[in-house]
């Protein structure tokens, strides 16, 4: 009986802790977003982070998308050839890349690169008193550190995903035409005919949401880190893990919202 009660108590504590964390993250996000509509605006900070995310993440996202498109075409061919459905490969590649793989893989790559960097930078600033220093220098840390990152990641991710979409489809096209013997025009027309505006739009909406989540989790984990180097390391890990899980979970939610019948 005591063991059962202890177990229930443990579950209760975990639930309360989870709700408390969720509430704190939501409040943090709300405050961060509120600074985006209240002057003064941190254009310089926004631009710095936008370049960092959109431009410097480009190589890793581009390579990921290109190879994913190539592998997808190759694997689809292996499966579809058993049913004499090779002609569907172009459709599968373009829909998979624009709807799912582009935003999700770009999101995961950016989470690893930017989410970790944001958490580490803010975590280090926290444990070295730099965030307190901002306050004493008449600057709201949420306005200076968090809000520009939220906006930059939200706007940069759709651009990255647009590039990922193009390169993913290009990867499939290259494998299709060079290795699998598709006629170039047929492959392209198959891709173009099946693609609808909503496929691309849903991917870009996902990208914007993922960008916001990556910046939010990185900022929240870093901003609230404690201790020294170990605390910063833990914050970095938490940021990447949390944003990766949220990306996958929200991917399902957004897909349901766009495409459920």
């Amino acid at each position: 009986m005591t063991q059962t009660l202890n177990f229930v108590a443990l579950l209760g504590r975990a639930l309360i802790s989870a709700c408390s964390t969720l509430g704190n993250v939501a409040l943090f996000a709300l405050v961060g977003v509120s600074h985006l509509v209240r002057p003064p605006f941190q254009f310089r900070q926004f631009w710095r982070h936008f370049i960092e995310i959109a431009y410097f993440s480009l190589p890793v996202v581009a390579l990921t998308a290109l190879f994913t498109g190539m592998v997808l075409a190759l694997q689809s061919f292996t499966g579809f050839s058993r049913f004499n459905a090779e002609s569907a490969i172009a459709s599968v590649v373009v829909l998979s890349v624009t709807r799912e793989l582009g935003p999700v893989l770009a999101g995961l790559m950016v989470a690893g690169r930017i989410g970790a960097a944001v958490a580490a930078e803010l975590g280090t600033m926290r444990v070295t008193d730099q965030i307190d220093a901002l306050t004493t220098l008449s600057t709201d840390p949420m306005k200076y550190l968090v809000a520009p990152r939220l906006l930059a990641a939200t706007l940069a991710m759709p651009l990255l995903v647009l590039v990922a979409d193009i390169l993913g489809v290009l990867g499939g096209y290259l494998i299709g035409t060079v290795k699998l013997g598709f006629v170039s025009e047929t492959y392209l027309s198959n891709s173009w005919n099946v693609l609808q505006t909503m496929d691309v739009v849903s991917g870009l909406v996902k990208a914007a949401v993922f960008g916001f989540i990556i910046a939010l989790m990185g900022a929240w984990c870093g901003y609230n880190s404690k201790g020294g180097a170990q605390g910063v390391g833990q914050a970095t890990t938490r940021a990447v893990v949390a944003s990766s899980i949220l990306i996958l979970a929200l991917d399902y939610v957004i897909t349901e919202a766009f495409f459920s019948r």
Partner: protein
Amino acid sequence: MSAVSDRGAESSTPKIRLRGLRKAFGDKVVLDGVDLDVRAGHSMVILGGSGSGKSVTIKCILGLITPDSGLIEIDGRDVGKMSHREREAILDRTGMLFQNGALFDSLPVWENVCFKLLAQKRITRAQARDKAAEALAQVGLAASVGDLSPAELSGGMQKRVALARAVAAQPDIIFFDEPTTGLDPIMGAVIDGLIVDCVQRLGATAFSITHDMASARRIGDDAAMIHKGRIIWAGSAQTLGDTGNEMVDQFARGEREGPIQMELRK
């Protein structure tokens, strides 16, 4: 620090007044009813061992930590009853030198020094470079240091830059958190001298915390000792080591035997 003791207009209202300040983190009570007055235009030094509540006191005054209870007054006004805008106005005329400098890694030295002025749009970026060079010169650094990043500076240089940043906006209250910690004795004396010069030049009220007795005597007009979250003594900084209070004298002389050690053995 006689240099500042005869400076500044005496006023019956303390610049900073603390009454019954309490703060606990979980079960650990850090501040247990701190009462303290800091006279306008004077330099107050708070002494105390590690974990005695010195840094928490400063953070409560600056609003970086919210106390559980107690009164904090600045210029006779209760900080707890101030609006957000009024608190910002208080911070606008406050400077702070953090223990480890807390310089912003992502910005060059000149931007660190003029951060507050730039944030408040009181000067342009072009003017900020000149202003930073001026502020750096006042702490004995060449203008060329302004183009370096904080990571390229030695500990002593970082402290000087942090001091330049703390005073660049000409605050009337300046807080110093362990200004000489981690520095060799000569560099410590240099920093103390710079602190005295800056405070004197600005006519500011200084509030320092330290456990460096030589530094306390150099920069302080008044001193107080905090122990177990309470002020156990307050008086002239020049009497440190000969105050008649056993705890303070033991601490000031750095003696192993005494009431503080005896309490630790319990």
